[in-house]
């Protein structure tokens, strides 16, 4: 068990900048991987975690080169091997599972053929043995009907199934070490939980060592025996998973764990100030100095070494770690948010809204109607009160973004009405809305890289809505822009910057400022934090909450992340296949009884705590179309009671907690089932 299979020694990897300076991305990294052990490498984007993982299989990205150190796999240095020698090791000894299996599989070859290729390359089996092995592998990764699965093409599989095929291919060569680079990041919550469960099973079953790279501490917590925390190209903390997650003794890890929203906590997570330094910008002192609340003068001048603490079996890179020992109960705290006045007026009302993506037939075009019996989004009734944050939650394909687009007028509704302020119907055609209604509803997008024009300065970006809605110009325009930047905690000097000169969090702040420039009544937030790093996400959530409390704005917040929704929302609407399943005050939706789908979703959430295991109550099948009759969740429901679920649309039931559930099962019975 204690045999070391790969060991990295003093590894530094870097590149030459345009000015000829040598800049390192990895700095002096040393770690060991033991046989049968799963090591989680965690860090924010740019921390060097992927570079380290790839170097561990002897691969260095173009433009980068090793500066010093070695990667010893069974006492041979991978970085000095020729590509011929590496060929014998990769796949056979070290295998990799990519982030996006959909892109890693060849689209025009059958699954079985692709696994067969891996087997041909890495084993000496003959044809019949290989065929047997293929179905064995497919069985092992728990794909449904492995016999027929081999004859399918990658596009016929769902994302989770594709990821399973990638796992099967990696296992084909019986590797000693499996490398996983964010293997579950693109997947839905329930699928993610299932894939992680599979990986844990495989690690135990085959005794393979694994290196699991992720930014998501929740996923890492589920699979890892040991955790390595990276920051700015260095290992800052390394030790047994439980110790790291329960009693983090490095201020960065501590802050990171605090900034993750948790299901068990209402209220907003604490945020860390600042962002990770760029490679090459640290000259002296600790790389975390800028953001650390334990920092003193010593930290500014001297860079701490990785220190081994025997009693905790942990390596830590901090001078003041002792201050963090024994004060970790504070991990379970959050910032309470002001609750809004629930008596407030209705500001937006969705009444029987249906939206269809179906192409109009010729006659329907002439008659200007949409005749789709089974639209993507159907019968949405939501009343949104002034000043509240209502969250729409669901997995991909649940129609949450579609509804948002309709409210913004970017997508026509098929039926139903969207009413704004005292029963004034908003046209579903953007061009027919009056300028004041357009001003009142603003959007913030998921990815600020796409939502900010790369060729505009921050000043130009923010002046667009100000010019359009308020006709401002000259000094007044400038004054307003500075005010807006102040509101989102950015300085005046940001005005002349281009988006590419800003960090992810800063860009999203600019996007937030642009939305607020219109002095809107409602802001539609479309997954606004999912492209951001965890520590930055907390800061943006806090900013949004602060702005809402100051300005009384209403948010419609779309997210797939139940913990984020828990942190920010007052009310939650759970959607499946474009139909509402449950709606209610957020503290109640997160309690039982709840709709079976909410139960499934909540069970699959990964908490950064090794003691809280996800509860997998439903299969992770992907349904492409909503069912034509009956309950939308009939296909996956773990509590399905019979034919009635297939034939009749379930009625609304209101629980004593105030949440409304759409289910055939009596709400009291549901409560006793879920106890």
């Amino acid at each position, binding site marked *: 068990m204690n045999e070391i299979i790969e060991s990295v020694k003093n590894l530094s990897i870097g590149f030459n900048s345009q000015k000829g300076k040598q800049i390192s991305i990895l700095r002096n990294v040393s770690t060991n991987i033991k046989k049968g052990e799963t090591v989680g490498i965690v860090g924010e984007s740019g921390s060097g975690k992927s570079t380290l993982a790839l170097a561990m299989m002897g691969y260095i990205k173009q433009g980068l080169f090793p500066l010093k150190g070695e990667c010893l796999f069974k006492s041979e240095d991978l970085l000095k091997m020729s590509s011929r020698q590496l060929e014998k090791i990769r796949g056979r000894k070290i295998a990799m599972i990519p982030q996006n299996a959909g892109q890693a599989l060849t689209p025009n070859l059958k699954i079985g053929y692709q696994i067969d290729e891996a087997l041909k390359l890495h084993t000496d089996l003959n044809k019949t043995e290989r065929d047997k092995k293929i179905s064995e592998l497919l069985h092992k990764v728990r794909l449904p009907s492995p016999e027929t699965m081999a004859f399918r093409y990658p596009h016929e599989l769902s994302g989770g199934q594709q990821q399973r095929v990638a796992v099967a291919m990696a296992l084909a060569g019986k590797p000693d070490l499996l490398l996983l680079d964010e293997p579950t990041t693109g997947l839905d919550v329930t699928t993610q939980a299932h894939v992680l469960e599979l990986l844990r099973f495989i690690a135990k079953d085959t005794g393979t060592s694994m290196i699991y790279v992720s930014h998501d501490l929740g996923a890492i917590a589920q699979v890892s025996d040991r955790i390595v925390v990276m920051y700015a190209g260095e290992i800052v903390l390394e030790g047994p998973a439980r110790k790291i997650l329960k009693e983090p003794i490095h201020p960065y890890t501590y802050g990171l764990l605090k900034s993750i929203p948790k299901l068990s906590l209402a209220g907003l997570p604490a945020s860390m100030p600042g962002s990770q330094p760029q490679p090459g*910008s640290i000259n002296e002192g600790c790389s975390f100095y800028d953001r650390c609340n334990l920092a003193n003068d010593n930290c500014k001048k001297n860079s701490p070494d990785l220190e081994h603490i025997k009693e905790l079996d942990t390596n830590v890179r901090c001078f003041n770690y002792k201050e963090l020992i024994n004060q970790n109960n504070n991990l379970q705290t959050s910032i309470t948010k002001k609750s809004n006045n629930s008596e407030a007026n209705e500001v937006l009302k969705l009444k029987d809204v249906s939206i269809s993506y179906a192409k109009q037939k010729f006659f329907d075009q002439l008659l200007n109607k949409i005749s789709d019996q089974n639209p993507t989004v159907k019968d949405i009734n939501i009343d949104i009160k002034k000043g509240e944050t209502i969250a729409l939650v669901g997995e991909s394909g649940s129609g949450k973004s579609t509804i948002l687009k309709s409210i913004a*007028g970017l997508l026509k509704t098929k039926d139903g009405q969207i009413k704004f302020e005292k029963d004034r119907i908003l046209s579903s055609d953007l061009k027919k809305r009056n300028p004041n209604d357009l001003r009142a509803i603003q959007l913030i997008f998921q990815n600020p890289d796409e939502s900010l024009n790369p060729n505009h300065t921050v000043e130009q970006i923010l002046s667009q809505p100000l010019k359009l809605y308020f006709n401002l110009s000259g000094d007044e325009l400038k004054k307003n822009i500075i005010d807006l930047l102040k509101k989102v905690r950015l300085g005046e000097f940001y005005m002349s910057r281009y988006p590419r000169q800003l960090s992810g*969090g800063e860009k999203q702040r600019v996007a937030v400022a642009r939305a607020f420039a219109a002095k809107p009544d409602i802001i539609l937030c479309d997954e606004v934090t999912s492209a951001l790093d965890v520590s930055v996400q907390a800061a943006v959530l806090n900013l949004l909450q602060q702005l809402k409390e100051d300005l009384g704005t209403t948010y419609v917040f779309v997210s797939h992340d139940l913990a984020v929704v828990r942190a920010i929302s007052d009310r939650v609407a759970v959607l499946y296949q474009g139909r509402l399943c449950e709606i209610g005050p957020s503290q109640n939706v997160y309690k039982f009884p709840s709709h079976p789908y909410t139960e499934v979703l909540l069970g699959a959430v990964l908490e950064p705590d090794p003691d809280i295991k996800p509860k997998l109550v439903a299969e992770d099948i992907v349904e492409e179309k909503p069912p034509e009759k009956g309950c939308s969740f009939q296909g996956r429901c773990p509590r399905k009671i019979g034919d009635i679920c297939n034939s009749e649309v379930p009625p609304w039931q209101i629980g004593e907690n105030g949440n409304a559930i759409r289910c055939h099962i009596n709400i009291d019975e549901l409560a006793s089932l879920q106890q």
Partner: protein
Amino acid sequence: MESNLITEDKQKNKLEKAFEILKTMASKPSGLIGLTIVLFHVVLALISPYIAPYDYKAISPNTMLLAPSAEHWFGTDSLGRDVFTRTILGGRTALTVTFFGSLIALLWGGLLGIFCGLVGGKIDDVVMRVVDAFLSIPWILAMLLIVSLLGTSTEVLIPALGFFYGKGIVRVARAATHDVIAKDFIVSARARGHSNMSIIWNEIIPNVRDAILVEGAMRWSWMLLGFSSLSFLGFGVSPPTPDWGLMISNARGLMSFAYWSVIAPIVGLSSLIIGINLTADAFAKALGIDRSTKAPV
């Protein structure tokens, strides 16, 4: 803290930016050669009337078809005119006509392409099919028809060439627009209720400008070739104005024994075309829109 992220990209005004791009272009040998050739031709076109040693239209029976010598550096042509004089003057009309022609092509092709890309739907379909129809007509035939109806003055040639060379730019501009149109910042501008014109001007043009400019530069060199072909066929510049295409056409019958009178204009024309091509390539690379880089394997 967050501000230390901004290290290299300092704020520059537009002139400094243009200078920066020129510097990047000149940093590679091919770009430097291209820029030098183009600069040489432009300067030559500007000063040639003042440095020409002879009168370009002076005919003399005594000096017919003389070989290159100290007096006549590039020899003389069949009418006894100095080939050096006519060569250095011969690029003036071509450069002017094609420069303004490309500008026109850029303007109408670029704007129409962007518009089609933005509005899409039926308007886009109809316009693109019309453009396709024009693309299928051999341009030289259509040009011949136009000049034979309207004459060969520059006022006819510039818009006519501009029209025929703009069709390709429509496609490029439309494709470049399609690349940015799905981005969220356009959706965001739409949702705010900006007009199409404002979206084109503020959001799209800054993002497609570079691609269209590079395409325009390429078209310029093609148009130069096209214009010279017209002159060669006798539909471009009318004699006795010196022009490379015309000079090649006049001297080609005597190529076997008076090669000098045909080589000089050929060198002039081809060097300018190569120069513009190299410059356009370097321009594309400097702006970072060149797609010929290796796949990151």
